[in-house]
């Protein structure tokens, strides 16, 4: 059989029963489209959560007062009620532990902030200059808090972009403006760059002030709410974490680690916890999509089986006028391939469009991955080809008279 004839016969067979071909293709399109779009939502969520975790800093260890607790994504790093960490603890970590590149203690609480009649409630972070390097914070305009200002308990503030536009409106330069935090006057000396984070650890809605100022004027105590420690590299993360734990246990005179009055958390753990949750989420979505793929697959299977069975007579006739079994096999293989290929291509495009639409209209980040395309395409193509080819192969082995007599 000539290639041109094979293609022409396939074309005629596919177009001969348009409704059947369209339904087969539709089954494939729905299966593939849903797998691709659902997995794209799952993976999009995963990468957006991971990048938001990465945006809070790198090689970070957080030390917080209170007992150890689990952290999940979305939940804030809840502070323990106990106030057990002091600036001395932070200094000790800086001085006594090797492999630490920077330490930034914070005294953070939410306070009412007012400026020229506008007011908002936001996170006020009392901290030290090292905070910028520990938390990957960049300054857009002005400057960050200096050591001088920490020493002199200066009432200066560095504002994050969201808070700035809440108080002063969009596009207004906040530098030099006055604000009141808990009725205390502050002057704005700097504006941070947007980090684009949402939810978890959003650093775009904050005001930074010297830690000494926060303790004296706002909280009125000497405690600190978090110590952010930056390890020199990823590999030393857990050893630094262990050293911090040992050091603080000694300093707080606690012998049993179970009774620790602080907790430590390293970034790798956060990332891992978050990705295991988003992983589960992706698997869930993939499972739903998998069901539609299976349903689509059964549709393809059903179509292919009925087509071939229905055409056993035709197979007999073709054999009777001289077709070899291979000619028959090739024709049905080609038909199945053509249907699944068209369905597959349309399905991939549809899945892509759906995931773009989801990220545009629902604001959910989506990532279309090559893996999901290959998976979806592979599964439906396999089903289509196996169930199109296998019965045709069986029928092509019948002798022509048996096939012609088939009802």
């Amino acid at each position, binding site marked *: *059989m*000539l290639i*041109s*004839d094979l293609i022409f*016969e396939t074309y*005629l067979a596919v177009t*001969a029963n348009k409704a059947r071909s369209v339904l087969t293709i539709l089954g494939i399109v729905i299966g593939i489209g849903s797998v691709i779009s659902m997995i794209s939502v799952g993976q999009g969520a995963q990468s957006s959560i991971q990048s938001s975790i990465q945006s809070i800093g790198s090689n970070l260890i957080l030390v917080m007062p209170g007992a150890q607790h689990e952290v999940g994504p979305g939940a804030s790093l809840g502070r323990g009620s106990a106030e057990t960490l002091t600036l001395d603890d932070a200094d000790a970590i800086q001085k006594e532990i090797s492999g630490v590149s920077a330490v930034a203690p914070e005294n953070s609480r939410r306070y009412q902030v007012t400026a020229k009649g506008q007011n908002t409630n936001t996170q006020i972070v009392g901290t030290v200059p090292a905070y910028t390097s520990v938390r990957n914070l960049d300054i857009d305009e002005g400057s960050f808090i200096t050591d001088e200002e920490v020493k002199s308990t200066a009432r200066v503030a560095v504002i994050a972009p969201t808070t700035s536009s809440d108080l002063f409106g969009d596009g207004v330069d906040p530098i030099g403006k006055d604000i009141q935090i808990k009725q205390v006057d502050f002057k704005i000396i700097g504006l941070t760059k947007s980090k684009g984070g949402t939810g978890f650890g959003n650093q775009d809605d904050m005001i930074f002030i010297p830690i000494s100022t926060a303790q004296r004027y706002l909280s009125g105590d000497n405690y600190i709410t978090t110590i952010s420690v930056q390890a020199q590299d990823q590999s030393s993360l857990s050893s630094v974490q262990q050293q911090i734990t040992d050091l603080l246990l000694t300093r707080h005179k606690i012998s049993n680690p179970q009774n620790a009055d602080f907790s430590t958390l390293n970034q790798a753990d956060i990332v891992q916890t978050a990705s295991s949750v988003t992983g589960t989420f992706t698997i869930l979505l993939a499972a739903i999509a998998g069901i539609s793929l299976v349903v689509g697959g059964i549709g393809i299977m059903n179509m292919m089986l009925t087509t071939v069975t229905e055409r056993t*007579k*035709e197979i*007999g*006739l*073709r*054999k*009777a*006028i*001289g*077709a*070899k*079994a*291979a*000619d028959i096999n090739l024709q049905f293989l080609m038909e199945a391939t053509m249907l699944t290929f068209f369905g597959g291509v349309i399905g991939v495009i549809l899945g892509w469009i759906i995931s773009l639409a989801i990220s545009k209209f629902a604001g959910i980040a989506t990532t279309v991955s090559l893996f999901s395309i290959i998976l979806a395409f592979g599964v439906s193509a396999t089903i289509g080809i196996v169930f199109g080819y296998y019965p045709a192969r069986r029928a092509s*082995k019948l*002798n*022509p*008279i*048996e096939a*012609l007599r088939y009802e």
Partner: protein
Amino acid sequence: MIELRNINKIYISDDVETQVLKNISFKIDKGEFVAITGPSGSGKSTIMHIIGALDSPTNGEYFLDGNDVSKLSDDELADIRRNKIGFVFQAFNLLPRATVLRNVTLPLVYAETVPEKRTEMAKKALLAAGLDENRWYHFSNQLSGGQMQRVAIARALVNNPSIILADEPTGNLDTKTGEIVLDTFQKLNREEGHTIILITHEYEVAKRANRIISIRDGMIVEDRNNF
């Protein structure tokens, strides 16, 4: 050259054995024009299918041009059907939802005839089978029984096979069209030396052949020359 030796065909369904052919033996030489007659259900079509390499006997030997057909592979049987035999089915067996021309050219597809020649060959065969030109582009399932029969005949002739096997080729045709078809067969037989075997109920048709084989209950009851 066709030679059947002690051909038996037994169908077994639900433990009931039906012996359709019983020890059929005969020889047909190249260039013969043979009619097979017999009552309905006597096994005529079954013999024809075996001769056409479409079906295999339960036992017995069938030699075609010196080859033992029962020993041939599926692909070799396909080669025989494609190159040597033109078969007109009693039930026509046309491809539905396909035009008359496409039905007639289909054997040429499998014979890998160059595409440019196909339509011409098909038209020639259709004329020989007596089908009006205004039906050539109709779908085969929009034809009358007689028209379908002529398409089936044209399809059998298109590849210019050396053996033409026709199962009741004039069964659905009026006398005049039947004559056209029989004239075609006779011409192919006399002028081009094709072997023609046809099955018929009608004495008028059988008379055209040089030899008449009569079958009853799966056995040959008479085999005579007719000059």
